[in-house]
């Protein structure tokens, strides 16, 4: 069976190359974050160097600490995820139970709202937030984040609700449990997996957002994705600090990705695997 073994070796080799391609930019940044500025600029680029923790010390506790920005990100992403779910769950449930034509129309509407080019939305958002005095506030930015997270969450959740057999729900209703109670006690437990998936994706999107955060945030609310760019100043680019900052900014999502990878795969493949087609 040497032929088979050889094939396995080749396959594993290919897989290893893949792994390298996907992971390498991140690993390279990780490496850079432990270099001194001088090592970063060394030519040819070096893999052997004396690692330093100074970049992290500076980025975390230096004069331009990223800690408040990490906190900003946590608040914005966390709260907007929570509110999104609060609104999206009942909406998705209702949508899943609608009659077909209405469902298609509203389903498409939900999807369409997701396609609005952010570029065209910045100015109206700015004007509105300014009018109500919510520029550079958590409330303001969180409300804006709802505009893209809510449609997405509804869209994702609908397919999970559709999986629930109607009979189960009808049984609950016959039990004279109200609709809300039916939703809470009978339906929700059935879609926990879906909710977990949605939570993860909504959180990721909110954490990674950049354009709105730059324009609508400010001193008080500045997520880490924006703050990171301060290491590219007009005076000089601090590569190693930038890399350290980027690693900090990405650490939570990478961690989340690793811990919840099963859910993520499921989220990505929702509908696709079971052949979908029922979603509007």
């Amino acid at each position, binding site marked *: 069976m040497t032929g088979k073994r050889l094939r396995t070796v080749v396959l594993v080799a290919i897989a290893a190359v893949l792994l390298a391609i996907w992971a390498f930019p991140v690993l390279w940044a990780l490496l850079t974050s432990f270099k001194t*500025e001088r090592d970063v600029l060394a030519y040819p680029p070096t893999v052997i160097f004396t690692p330093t923790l100074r970049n992290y010390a500076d980025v975390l506790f230096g004069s331009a600490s990223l800690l408040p920005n990490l906190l900003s990100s946590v608040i914005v992403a966390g709260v907007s995820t929570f509110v999104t779910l609060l609104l999206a769950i009942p909406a998705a449930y209702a949508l899943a139970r609608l009659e077909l034509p209405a469902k298609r129309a509203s389903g498409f509407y939900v999807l369409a709202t997701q396609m609005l080019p952010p570029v065209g939305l910045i100015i109206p958002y700015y004007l509105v937030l300014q009018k109500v005095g919510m520029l550079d506030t958590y409330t303001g930015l969180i409300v804006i984040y709802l505009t893209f997270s809510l449609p997405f969450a509804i869209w994702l959740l609908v397919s999970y609700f559709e999986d629930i057999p109607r009979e189960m729900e009808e049984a609950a209703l016959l039990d004279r449990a109200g609709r809300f109670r039916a939703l809470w006690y009978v339906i929700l437990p059935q879609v926990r997996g879906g909710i977990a998936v949605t939570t993860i994706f909504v959180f990721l999107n909110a954490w990674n957002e950049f354009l709105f955060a730059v324009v609508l945030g400010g001193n008080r609310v500045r997520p880490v994705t924006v703050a990171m760019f301060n290491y*590219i100043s007009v005076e000089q680019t601090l590569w190693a600090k930038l890399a350290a900052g980027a690693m900090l900014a990405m650490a939570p999502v990478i961690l989340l990705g690793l811990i919840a990878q099963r859910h993520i795969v499921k989220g990505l493949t929702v509908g696709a695997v079971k052949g979908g087609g029922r979603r509007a």
Partner: protein
Amino acid sequence: MKERTTKAMAQGRRRMLKQTAALGAAAVAAPYVLRSAHAQSNADVAPYTQAKIDWKQAQGAEIAVAVIPASYFDNLIAIAPTFEALTGVKVRFEKVPPGQIRQKAMLDLSSKTATYATSATDPMYYPLYVSNKWIDPIDHYLNDNALTDKAWFDNDDIFKAWRDANSYEGKPYAVPYDGEVTIQVYRKDLYDAKGLKAADTLDEFLKNAAAINDPANRVYGMALRGFAGAGQNMYIYPSLFREFGGQWFKGRKVVVDSPEAVKALDWYVNAESKYAPPAVRNWNWPDIADAFSQGTLGCYIDAHSSASVLMNPEKSKVIGKIAYARWPKGPTGKRCTSIWNWGFPINAALNDKQKKATWLFITWAASAETQARTSWKFNGPAKRTGLNRASLWKSPDFVAMTKDYGPNFVDAALTSLEQDTDVDWRPRVPQWPAIGDTMATAIQAALVGQKNAKQALDGAQARIDQVLKS
């Protein structure tokens, strides 16, 4: 979907609980994190109270100031408590990345929200701001004895080129806080070894570059910013354009494809493709300074302030090997350096009290005392070199502070500031943002060989005509 087992659900919930716990912990830690260590420097306000004005006249006002993340503003922020103590005005600084500051300022100005009392402003944007009436002319503030003690503030001491750049149609609109000029920065050791001296003309500049250029050993003759952008390649090219005799205006029309323009661009393309590292077309000045600090460049022409990077012992390998000179002369015999400063204008949408407070802030920041306190008197590693006053440049303290930069630093920069500046360095019109962007795109197209100089500039002219006629 059988996979969604209860176990997975339980895991999911545990994960959620963990997240919530983390959120709680972060919230508890917040006050500690947010409380920045404001060691109130009980700095002396005496030098300011010599001014015969009432610093407290806008007491209680609150103003917000947008700046970019840069050490010269960090120094100002660090000593701002002195201003608050002096005036009773509260200042809130917001650092906005350079790519976004104009956007945010303009969103604020155009919607008249008065979010920022003032923001660090690119001088090329005043024509635009003025034609929209977004900012106030400052002449009446300057001439109001209750607001400005002319003898103490001494506006004429501030570099004329910068004041001119911050004026439009004869009226001043902003006070320069920090600025720069472009000068030649070269490797004295390499030049000495080959018996070269700093170029006096553009031809000599190329000859020097050719003599130093040795790509096989990773030494390139020279580099000039090549990245596309109104503040990148369109920051270098205008100097060349003017030195070749180019005129931006024919009557009221903006002309960018004159024969002089083509010659200037040809020179630029030729120099960059023959003697610069191949990546230079993507380089902004920090990249050039990085390359120079690693010993890969013989010479570059860029802002004098870049010298401070070259002096950073953590990065630089060329400390003690650097010297400076003015821009080389063009074929017309003209030298033309850049005019750049970060000025502070006054947002027209503010109320009167805020405007007064803003003006007090601006004069405080631009005063000789604050300039000195953010430079050689500053208690920190980064000391500003972009001071706005000729008298300060000539002061022994400033000269002493910059003596390690290398031969001729103050002299080259100061002479350039006083003699080589030209207010028509770039076309000052309200449509500058579109023109600057169009020119930057065209110049880069020529630099990377997508088009030749003539084609690129003709294309730019067509687009500019379209923008201006409509």
